[in-house]
């Protein structure tokens, strides 16, 4: 083992993760502006280009954006896996990725092939830099914790998701390339399960036991969960691919994979909820509420998915809302309220603790960077927006605009909270 590679402290500049975190709510805000512009008719066509614009603003612009920022921060700290030149790389990736997502969304929304072509040109280097850098870091990671293996699987899945996505986008943008619609389920499967879910699982392994002071996840579970998702995804992809070549009687096999994913994800949701219920740290904070909401929504989304599969295909929009906004975004949003105040405190502490005349007592604690009461307000908005969105699908589209307005307020408030945290940081540095 080469100990010299390891300094255990290669935390990047504060701006490296923060630029991603600050952009995320802006993309979500934009997504709902688009939805507002389109009106409730958008709900009746799941595969319209405008729906694709919305989903990509959310999944790339909010979810992937924040997860990329988190990886820049977490990999060096948790895995002893340094990302070479991380502050320059993050700047370039962030710029290319942001432009790429905007172009992609605009290309879909206005059905402009030129914009789609441009987005492909910009997204390829943007994603490639990030993927190469994290893959390099993960290959060299010192830690063999299950969480790191899960991150490897998540990054591998992002490679696949991105490749399939670029193929599909090229199909939309270029006449020379046929639109291979059979890749769509694979793109969605690798993206939602392999990338988003496995990434959240890998963070949960670390974060839930440590920050809520709970028991650890059982070793067997942490060893099996993410690898079984990976293996199942590979087998399912292989089956899907071959079944388009030769006709295999398929329904049953598809359903088998469906149940496998269902059981894996449900066991993760239920077990994590059980851990949190038994936590030693009784004091609840906003992050915990977000986690509990996220895990419950994951459970609901799976149940609705099961029901939709057999009885009512129309409900798949509800599954999407519960999975993306209820599960993934709740958890990411909750994590932001831990990561951002901590980073602000940590960097201020490093810069000021030994130099400032006011000393360490002048450094705001995490709760003073983003107050728990403030963040709870945003939590309630998030919850209200979720409920209204569910009502839009299940009760009446009358709720459509109300839901969007609450989402817009929600992301404006999240942005303000993050922005204020950055101002606090600047202010403290300025007055030393």
């Amino acid at each position, binding site marked *: *083992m080469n100990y010299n590679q*390891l300094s*255990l402290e290669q935390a990047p500049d504060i701006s490296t993760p923060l630029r991603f975190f600050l952009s995320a709510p802006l993309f979500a805000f934009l997504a709902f502006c688009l939805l507002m512009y389109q009106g409730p008719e958008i709900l009746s066509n799941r595969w319209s280009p405008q729906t694709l614009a919305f989903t990509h603003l959310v999944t790339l612009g909010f979810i992937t954006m924040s997860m990329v920022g988190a990886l820049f921060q977490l990999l060096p700290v948790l895995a002893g896996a340094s990302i070479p030149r991380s502050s320059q790389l993050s700047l370039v990736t962030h710029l290319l990725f942001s432009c790429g997502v905007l172009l992609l969304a605009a290309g879909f929304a206005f059905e402009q092939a030129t914009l789609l072509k441009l987005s492909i040109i910009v997204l390829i280097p943007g994603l490639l830099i990030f993927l190469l850098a994290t893959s390099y870091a993960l290959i060299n990671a010192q830690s063999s914790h299950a969480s790191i293996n899960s991150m490897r699987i998540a990054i591998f899945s992002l490679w696949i998701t991105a490749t399939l996505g670029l193929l599909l986008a090229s199909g939309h943008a270029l006449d020379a390339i046929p639109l291979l619609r059979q890749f769509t389920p694979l793109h969605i499967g690798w993206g939602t399960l392999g990338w988003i879910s496995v990434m959240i699982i890998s963070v949960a392994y670390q974060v839930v036991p440590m920050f809520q002071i709970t028991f650890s996840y059982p070793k067997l579970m942490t060893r099996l969960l993410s690898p079984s998702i990976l293996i199942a995804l590979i087998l399912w992809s292989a089956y899907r691919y071959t079944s388009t070549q030769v006709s295999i009687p398929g329904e049953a096999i598809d359903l088998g994979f469906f149940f496998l994913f269902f059981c894996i994800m449900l066991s993760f949701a239920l077990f994590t909820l059980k851990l949190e219920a038994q936590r030693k740290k009784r004091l609840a904070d906003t992050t915990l509420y977000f986690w509990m909401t996220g895990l419950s929504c994951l459970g609901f989304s799976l149940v609705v998915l099961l029901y939709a599969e057999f009885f009512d295909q129309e409900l798949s929009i509800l599954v999407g809302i519960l999975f993306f906004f209820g599960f993934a975004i709740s958890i990411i949003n909750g994590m932001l309220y831990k990561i951002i105040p901590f980073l602000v405190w940590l960097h201020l*502490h490093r810069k000021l603790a030994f130099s400032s005349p006011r000393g*360490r*007592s002048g450094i705001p*604690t995490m*709760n003073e960077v983003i107050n728990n009461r403030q963040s709870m307000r945003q939590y309630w908005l998030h919850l209200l927006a979720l409920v209204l969105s569910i009502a839009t699908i299940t009760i009446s589209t009358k709720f459509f605009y109300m839901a969007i307005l609450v989402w817009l307020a929600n992301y404006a408030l999240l942005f303000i909270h993050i922005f204020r945290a950055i101002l606090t940081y600047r202010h403290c540095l300025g007055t030393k």
Partner: protein
Amino acid sequence: MDSISHLMTDDHRRCDHLFAEAEQQVANKNWELAGKNAHAFNAAILHHFQHEESTLFPAFEKATGMQGGPTHMMRHEHEQMRQLLAELMDAIDAQNQDRYLGLSETLLIFMQQHNMKEEQILYPMIDQECAEDSEQLMAGLHSTPENSNAA
């Protein structure tokens, strides 16, 4: 088989529980018990640092010949946590709930990311490098309980 990793990880968990008990009592404004718990937590964690700095880290440094590497960083983080702990003890003595909970949240995250690095990277290295002396190194953790009364 018992290893240094296991023993030290268990000690982290013990400190975590003391932390949670203290926080709970502060939240309840049960100041008498809160004070007792907070000081017990403070003593336990300071003793843990002390054992690492005076026994485990030097053994690792000797075995690998590395002075400025991971152990240096860990000592530095201990120093930062000692500052936070001192402020935390001021807050408990002043019975200042907001200040205590603000500091304790910050300390918890700092402490957990520190522990994570030790448990996942440094302790396994120590297990590997100092296998011969492990009995002796492990005995040190609980053999000097008088240190834990320092606070």
